[in-house]
């Protein structure tokens, strides 16, 4: 079955989704909306998001900045459209709750958020190894996700808290938190340091350090950074039976390197103690299939009623709540934000 799709927000992400839908073959993109329409996209372009509904789409792809996401998602659900929305799911957990309330009124519709990192091949492999019990109980996780700011950092809407909800943590670190939640399900304790080091005149964090513990005792540490200067993704999972690491992540920019999975199972000595530096298996992934798998899951959910496993609104709420807890756990940061908000008023 071919789904008629309209894309609201036809920037970088909207165009990535468009290409993924073309590769899938189960979609017909009938219209797109953006502030810039002076180019040939091969489909009707418009600036008024309400006009896309004139093309009678079955599904809406919401690829707009964070502050617009709740309105676009809720409107689409109200009009009876299935929705695929980019992350982060709004600016805060209240935004997610609002979308979940709209979702609850239309249980026959699919709402999925684009946390595509779960679909990366190395991550899927890691999940198989953990879930299948091959590695034994999970002890702790380390995640580093960072970059070098970006062009027009100070002017970018992503770094305006009124539009984005926060800085590097909510923009990029949220992916790592989503993966942590996939492996550990939830955290009962959160500690953090949230900092502004380089772009001191920009009212969002450029670094966030978080230490979390799940009710089962799994400890996770995150460093999300905009001042790392080299693009880097590292996820390490240490278990009773060995370890898994993912170094690099295939991305649209291609700047985070090849995606390399390393897996090692412990070798034991005669007394049953692990011998240091076990043999590890390295698998390199060079093709980013995450966009295609994500689109395929959405298509299956809409057409065949298959459950959405990655990017549910519950997962969106969980990760957004965790982002807020990390911000809140650093009282210095909370005070700074409150001061900024007061000055803005």
């Amino acid at each position, binding site marked *: 079955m071919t789904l008629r799709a309209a894309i609201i927000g036809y920037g970088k992400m909207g165009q990535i989704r468009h290409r993924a839908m073309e590769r899938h073959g189960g979609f017909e993109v009938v219209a797109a909306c953006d502030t810039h329409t002076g180019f040939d996209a091969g489909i009707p372009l418009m600036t008024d998001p309400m006009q896309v509904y004139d093309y009678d789409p079955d599904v809406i792809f919401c690829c707009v900045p964070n502050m617009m996401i709740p309105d676009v998602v809720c409107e689409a659900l109200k009009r009876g459209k299935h929705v695929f929305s980019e992350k982060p799911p709004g600016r805060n957990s209240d935004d997610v709750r609002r979308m979940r309330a709209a979702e609850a009124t239309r249980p026959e519709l699919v709402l999925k958020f684009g946390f595509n990192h779960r679909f990366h091949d190395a991550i899927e492999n890691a999940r198989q190894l953990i879930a299948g019990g*091959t590695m034994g109980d999970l002890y702790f996780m380390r995640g580093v996700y960072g970059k070098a700011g970006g062009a027009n950092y100070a002017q970018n809407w992503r770094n305006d808290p009124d539009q984005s909800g926060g800085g590097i943590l909510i923009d990029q670190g949220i992916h790592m938190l989503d993966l942590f939640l996939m492996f550990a399900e939830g955290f009962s304790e959160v500690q953090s340091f949230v900092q502004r080091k380089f772009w001191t005149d920009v009212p969002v964090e450029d670094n966030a350090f978080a230490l979390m513990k799940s009710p089962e005792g799994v400890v996770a540490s995150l460093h999300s950074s905009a001042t790392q200067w080299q693009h880097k993704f590292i996820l390490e999972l240490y278990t009773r039976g060995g370890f898994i690491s993912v170094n690099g992540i295939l991305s649209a920019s291609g700047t985070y390197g090849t995606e390399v999975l390393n897996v090692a*199972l412990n070798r034991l000595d005669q007394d049953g103690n692990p011998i240091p*530096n076990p*043999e590890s*298996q*390295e698998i390199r992934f060079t093709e980013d299939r995450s966009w295609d798998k994500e689109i395929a899951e959405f298509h299956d959910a809409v057409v065949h009623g298959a459950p959405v496993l990655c990017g549910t609104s519950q997962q969106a709420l969980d990760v957004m709540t965790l982002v807020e807890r990390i911000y809140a756990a650093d009282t210095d940061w909370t005070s700074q934000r409150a001061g900024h908000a007061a000055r803005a008023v």
Partner: protein
Amino acid sequence: MYTPVFIDELPDASTVSSRKSELYRLTRARGLTELLLDGTTPWHDRACPGCGQDRSQSGNFSQALIPFHRCSHCNTIYAAKVPAQAPLDALRARLQAERPEAHAEADAGSRQEFEFVSVLNWIRLTEARAATGRPLAQVLDYRFCSENPAWPGAVARLAQNRGWQFLPLAPDSEPLADLARTLRQSPPDAVLLNAELDRSADPRALLQTIRDHAPEGTLVFVATSCADGLEYEILGADSPSFVPLDRLNVFSVKGFEALARGLGYDCLEISTPGRLDAVILQRYFTEIESAAVPFWSGFFREADRDRLRDLQILLQRSLRSGVMRFVLKT
């Protein structure tokens, strides 16, 4: 299809070649000579066991005892004439029986234990990754238990939650009948062919037997020598790993893949996890001072341990190490 790299510490060069292995080579050469002199053993000429290319189109690799060719199409190295499987099995069984006990004890050393663990972990990780929907509860080991007597003991100590069945080398007038019978009577979830395909007079028949008699979805773990390895590329028949009786077939990656796919197997995983190419080559060039190969002789004489490790990993990543592993699915 996955192409994993197996990263581990390099062994000391001193452990790579020793008096024991020289004795081993001489014993094998003697056995092969006896087989050649025995007028009752039938021999037959053959084409490349990998891609099937006629041997007239391949170059000579060695004339040591029997002619070996290197296939110009797929790079597989192979004995151009081989004995029938039954007398070959009888010879192997006799040589194993003659092996001194001290040899078996030495085999139980830590290096070998690491290799055993590597094989067992390979199966565990592939089991998780292959997503066949069922655990590999029963594994059939075909003959590695005979080739390496310490193996069953290691399996008993180290293999967790998995049943193992060992099918040792048993000379029979009807080769492969024992394998076909076992596959039918006790169908395994996986078959391990570790260091067996090199020694087989008819590797196609061995793989065909498994394909015909194992249930659909059975995984076949194959570990064998690799003709694409740098050791073979540089040293050719001088390679210390080239023991004619044990290396009737040294498949290339391309050649073995062609054979497996031609028999209807799915190839799930290919790797060349060898750890020894770099240290073997260093030992060769430092021991034989007159050996001169452009670039390589100087490289290996000057390389430190760190450089050797980097090279070995690069060889693995390039599928250019002297050992290869395949995971096939029936």
